[in-house]
């Protein structure tokens, strides 16, 4: 055989092999890129869903009402799918196609969660009434939508012989609702904040002061800038009203019935047609409504803590908010009642999702071994007898207000086990109606992810079974925490600033000022490179530092017809975020537990990855910072809208 022939044969063998190899590698790279693209699209779509929810809730005065919540969540689901569809549009997927690959979405809220997913419709609506028919039940249609609200619940008994049977509804913080019967069979129906009772002392009802966490809590001055809309008489003298708006103005306010009541020392008749000589108002969806004398007297009696007070006694000096005092006082009373019910009892968990938690295992992708999906700590829970110990033994080591408490660990376990079991079933049910050859199942969520879910209002989306070439399917999930919402005040939602003077007129004056994260080194005097004014600190919820809007219908002065809608954007608190802690994060040192309990900083704390911070070992946060932080956190928590707040029924 000639050399040339050999060469030709060689080429004939080698070229196809190399071509196939090239194709295979290119294919793999494409799959990898597609996967990364899908990750991006899924995360952005989830982000969009969170933004949609924020936009709809932050500027809506009634966003915490349940009907409004469902509407906002539906809108959020819609924007998720729209965003996903436009992100994947170039890959040829329409929204209808995509719905086949999203087995579930999870919306965790303050006291429970909604699941979006597949369900079978057994009901037909006829003339606005629900009609149940065998025909419907036999021929179940698959629909996707939001399923009923599920509370973070756990049920306890004190053994087979005992009468104690309690259902505790948990929330994202230390607020609980307790329902059921105590050890003697008495009905229990109470709700409140659970705290470590030993941190509260010196309760003085007349001055409304007490000591909590070693810090004196008392009445405080609050104020913010607002743009309000006023109703004024019609310009043409006919009956009816018109609307007009004012410039941003600073008002002192107090919380009363979970609502802000403002003090307007300069009010007069020309300002609003609702003015009847009383200088106090509240906002009704940005519309300023001045109080009647009776209402104002109620407000005065509340603020001055005197049942004979009337509104003329109020002035800028005594118009103070004492929500923080009430938070600790009511929490103290509630905790003592609660401890009277569960104290000394050996509690067993009845809730199945909690008890089955340890049985769920999955194949780990890293090691290929069976690992539990989320393990409940055996330190307080016995999986054989289902008994728990120490969770409600409140004390210095177990303060429910802190992150590191056993109560908090148990609370998170309850939330995670409930969400996990419901998600598992909703995702596997998806298989019944979607025979794509792919088996939908709940992926393993990492411990970090569960931490985010159990401590924040979050949106979690799942996307599975999407073919991405090379016989591979795309499967992933995405978690985005909603840190700016009216639902829930977390330990991280308080920002501190100097109390505003309020003498800003129009757009100039008082625009300075910086707000800080309470954990900031500079604020606590540990970063000498930054000068911070720490006099007269006050804390506000993070959403009060966000942009708010007021819009109203402009009426043409000659035709008295609505010509356009004007929208004003404003910030309730002036100034800007500190670059060392709010915008950048490099100066954040303390943990929230350090701030709450007043404990020293430990450089080996797990929350930080570094051991090089030893120069700050055992440093404690500034007392003024702690006071402002603890007061603000208590005040904002106390004034959250809570569905079960009226539960107060227990007579042992």
């Amino acid at each position, binding site marked *: 055989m000639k050399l040339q022939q050999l*060469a030709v044969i*060689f080429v004939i063998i080698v070229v196809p092999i190399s071509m196939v190899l*090239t194709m295979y590698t290119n294919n793999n*790279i494409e799959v990898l890129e597609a996967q990364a693209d899908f990750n991006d699209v899924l995360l952005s779509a989830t982000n969009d869903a969170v933004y949609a929810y924020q936009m709809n809730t932050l500027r809506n005065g009634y966003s915490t009402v349940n009907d409004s919540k469902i509407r906002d969540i539906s809108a959020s689901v819609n924007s998720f799918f729209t965003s996903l569809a436009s992100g994947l549009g170039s890959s040829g997927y329409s929204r209808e196609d995509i719905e086949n690959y999203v087995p579930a979405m999870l919306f965790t809220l303050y006291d429970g969660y909604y699941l979006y997913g597949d369900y079978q419709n057994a009901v037909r609506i006829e003339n606005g009434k629900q009609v149940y028919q065998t025909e419907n039940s036999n021929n179940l249609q698959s629909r996707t939508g939001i399923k009923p609200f599920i509370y973070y619940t756990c049920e306890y008994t004190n053994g087979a012989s005992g009468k104690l049977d309690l259902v505790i509804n948990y929330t994202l913080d230390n607020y609980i609702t307790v329902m059921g019967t105590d050890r003697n069979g008495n009905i229990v129906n109470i709700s409140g904040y659970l705290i470590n009772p030993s941190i509260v002392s010196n309760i003085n009802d007349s001055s409304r002061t007490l000591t909590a966490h070693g810090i004196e809590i008392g009445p405080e001055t609050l104020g913010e800038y607002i743009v309000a809309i006023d109703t004024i008489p019609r310009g043409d003298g006919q009956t009816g009203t018109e609307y007009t708006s004012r410039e*941003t103005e600073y008002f002192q306010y107090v919380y009363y019935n979970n609502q802000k009541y403002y003090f307007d020392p300069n009010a007069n008749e020309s300002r609003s047609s609702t003015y009847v000589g009383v200088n106090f108002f509240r906002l009704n969806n940005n519309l300023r409504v001045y109080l009647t004398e009776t209402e104002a007297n109620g407000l005065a009696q509340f603020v001055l803590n005197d049942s004979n007070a009337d509104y003329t006694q109020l002035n800028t000096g005594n118009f103070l908010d004492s929500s923080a005092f009430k938070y600790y006082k009511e929490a103290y009373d509630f905790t003592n009642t609660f401890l009277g019910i569960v104290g000394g009892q050996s509690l067993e968990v009845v809730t199945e999702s909690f008890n089955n938690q340890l049985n769920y295992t999955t194949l780990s992708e890293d090691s290929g071994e069976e690992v539990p999906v989320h393990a409940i700590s055996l330190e307080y829970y016995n999986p054989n007898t289902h008994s728990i110990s120490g969770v409600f033994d409140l004390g210095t080591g177990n303060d429910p207000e802190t992150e590191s408490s056993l109560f908090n660990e148990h609370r998170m376990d309850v939330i995670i086990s409930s969400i996990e079991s419901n998600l598992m079933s909703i995702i596997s049910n998806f298989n019944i109606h979607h025979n794509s050859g792919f088996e939908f199942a709940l992926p393993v969520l990492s411990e970090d992810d569960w931490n985010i879910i159990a401590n924040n209002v979050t949106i979690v989306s799942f996307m599975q079974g999407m073919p991405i070439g090379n016989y591979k399917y795309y499967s992933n999930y995405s978690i985005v*925490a909603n840190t700016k919402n009216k639902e829930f005040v977390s330990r991280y939602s308080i920002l501190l600033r100097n109390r505003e003077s309020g003498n800003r007129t129009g*757009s100039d004056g008082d625009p300075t000022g910086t707000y800080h994260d309470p954990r900031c080194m500079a604020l606590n005097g540990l970063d000498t490179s930054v000068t911070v004014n720490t006099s007269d600190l006050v804390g506000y919820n993070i959403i009060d530092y966000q942009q708010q809007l007021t819009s109203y219908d402009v009426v043409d002065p000659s035709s008295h017809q609505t010509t356009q809608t004007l929208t004003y954007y404003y910030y309730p608190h002036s100034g800007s975020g500190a670059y060392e802690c709010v915008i950048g994060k490099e100066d954040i040192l303390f943990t929230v537990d350090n701030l709450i309990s007043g404990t020293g900083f430990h450089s080996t704390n797990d929350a930080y990855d570094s051991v090089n911070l030893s120069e700050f070992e055992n440093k404690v946060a500034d007392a003024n910072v702690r006071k402002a932080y603890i007061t603000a956190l208590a005040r904002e928590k106390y004034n959250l809208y809570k569905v079960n707040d009226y539960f107060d029924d227990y007579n042992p």
Partner: protein
Amino acid sequence: MNDTVVTVLAIFLAAILMFIFPLMTTADKTDDITTQAVDAATTDFVDGIRSTGKITQDSYDNFIQTISSTGNSYDVEMEVQVLDDNPGKKVTEAEYTKVGENYYYSEYTTQILDELNSAAGAMYLKQGDMVTVSVKNTNRTIGTILRDFFYSVTGNNSATVTATHSGIVSVNGR
């Protein structure tokens, strides 16, 4: 005479076909597979930052180690865009009717590495910040050398192994 020339040419051709061509193909494939590995490592690194909200010395070292194990040397460029809503606020306060704008300021590789080497040992980000990591090789891979033997590509974009990934941070680092 004529036959000799053809034989010499044939030997020369055969040498190219039998030795250099397979070598080139293999080297090219190695580069492709390296690209794939580096791409995966970069995506992992960036997604890790996005979902934890922090860049730690540990994760950075791991990332560098992973890509170095492919046998090439790399130039890693990082950029963090920090969301700053302060400028937008000032504008809004002067003109009520203007919606606030989101500004970003950037920190680049050396600044990020400085922070990683500082006492905190990590750079913490917040929700809404953006992170970009791009990697390209700085050495000449065997594939490049062999290719340059026949035809050389000049210019800046001669790196054969490149990967870029970016995204928005979804949680507060602390």
